[in-house]
């Protein structure tokens, strides 16, 4: 099979631009997702069932349906109500943020619940209120537990941002499909794009492992 390198060359500037967009969109998604996710996690851990309900529904809807449907509804249905003209990048960022917020909320919940019950008891037995114990004792410890799964979620987001191509958001996958469409060729654009994704996710994985190792040695101060 012939592999036409000039196709890769021709489109390389666009792949690189797309890569930057992919990284930017994923970063925006995880940052907004973090803020929303913390808020949802705390709401979902309220002792009041009625307060918990909406947060629980949110989490179930966003974790229970495909991101592709979410993106289509957001881009074609919701964003147009507020924004004219709507921008697929904005829709993509909104979709990734809302979706990841649901997963991040569960990460936070698991992180908080993984802290030994004895920590809360010790804090309370010293006379701290529930809020003080959370703020001073539980959350600072939970943050460390939460970093590895958050790193993972970022990698997931990076890959899922490729669905932006369906909305014609000019991220990496979009340019891959544009090249494929122009030349009606499969291997050159898609292998190149796959390779770029692989480099991105593997570098992130190594970075994460490094951070985790650093945190472990920090623990042994």
């Amino acid at each position, binding site marked *: 099979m012939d592999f036409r390198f000039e196709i890769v060359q021709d489109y390389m500037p666009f792949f690189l631009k797309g890569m930057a967009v992919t990284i930017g969109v994923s970063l925006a998604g995880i940052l907004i997702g973090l803020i929303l996710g913390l808020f949802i996690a705390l709401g979902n851990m309220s002792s009041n069932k009625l307060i918990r309900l909406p947060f629980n529904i949110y989490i179930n809807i966003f974790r229970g349906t495909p991101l592709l449907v979410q993106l289509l509804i957001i*881009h*074609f249905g919701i964003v147009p109500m507020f924004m*004219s*003209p709507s921008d697929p990048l904005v829709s993509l960022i909104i979709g990734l943020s809302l979706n990841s917020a649901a997963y991040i909320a569960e990460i936070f919940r698991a992180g908080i619940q993984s802290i030994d019950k004895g920590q809360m008891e010790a804090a309370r037995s010293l006379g701290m209120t529930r809020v003080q114990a959370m703020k001073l004792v539980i959350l600072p410890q939970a943050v460390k537990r939460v970093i590895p799964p958050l790193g993972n979620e970022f990698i997931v987001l990076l890959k899922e941002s490729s669905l932006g191509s369906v909305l*014609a958001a000019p991220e990496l996958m979009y340019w891959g499909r544009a090249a494929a469409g*122009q030349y009606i060729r*499969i291997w050159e654009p898609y292998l190149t794009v796959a390779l770029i994704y692989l480099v991105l996710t593997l570098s992130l994985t190594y970075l994460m492992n490094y951070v985790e190792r650093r945190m472990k040695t920090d623990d042994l101060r």
Partner: protein
Amino acid sequence: GSGGEQQSGSEDKKVLNVGTEATFAPFEFMDKGEVSGFDVDLLNAAAEEAGYEVDIKNTGWDAMLAGLQSDQLDIGMSGVTITDERKETYDFSSPYFESVSMIVFKEGTNITKAEDLKGKKIGVQNGTTGQIAAEAIVGKNDSSISKYEAAALTFQALQSGDVEAVVTDIAVALEYVKNNPDAGVKTVSDEQFTPEYYGIVFSKGSELKAEFDEALNTLYENGTYTEIYKKWFDEEPNLDVLKEAAVQ
């Protein structure tokens, strides 16, 4: 146009948002990041004539139509056929191109007429007249029909053997065959496919329709249309057909 007479400050011109699905060569396709094609040249000329600037974005077919409905986009320009059904939801300019459906298939497949599509696996672009033409023969939502979100995907599917035939617009079919001489594909047309006409799409009730109809007319008269047509199709356009269709 002659720059001297026109207002020189381009900032004063209103920018129109245009959506397209740019895998429909030669009408619109991505040329390394730029949307280009016959439609692009024609729309640019018409807009200039009407005193607008256009910002053409490759939104995809679905997003183009949805964007027009919600007034996100001012114009859809994507080789869109004027149909009665679509006229209920959108406004169209006067016709600017005559087209007809055509079947593209791999050499060796036994297809000589439209009826031969029966029992074959057919690829179409979702929601287009190609789909309507194919469904007219084999039945609506028949399991032999695969609907793809973009025209390019139908050709990829044909090449990979995913489908045995693609039903699409004639100029696009011929362009594909021309650009892929090694692909081993053939085309066939059929009387059964009725002529159709492309129009520029506006959201319902748009004031732009009249202005662009007038601009198109000017382009027909002053030879700009012919120039653009010849650039992309290497032949003279038949303007009479378009004028006739416009009357209907």
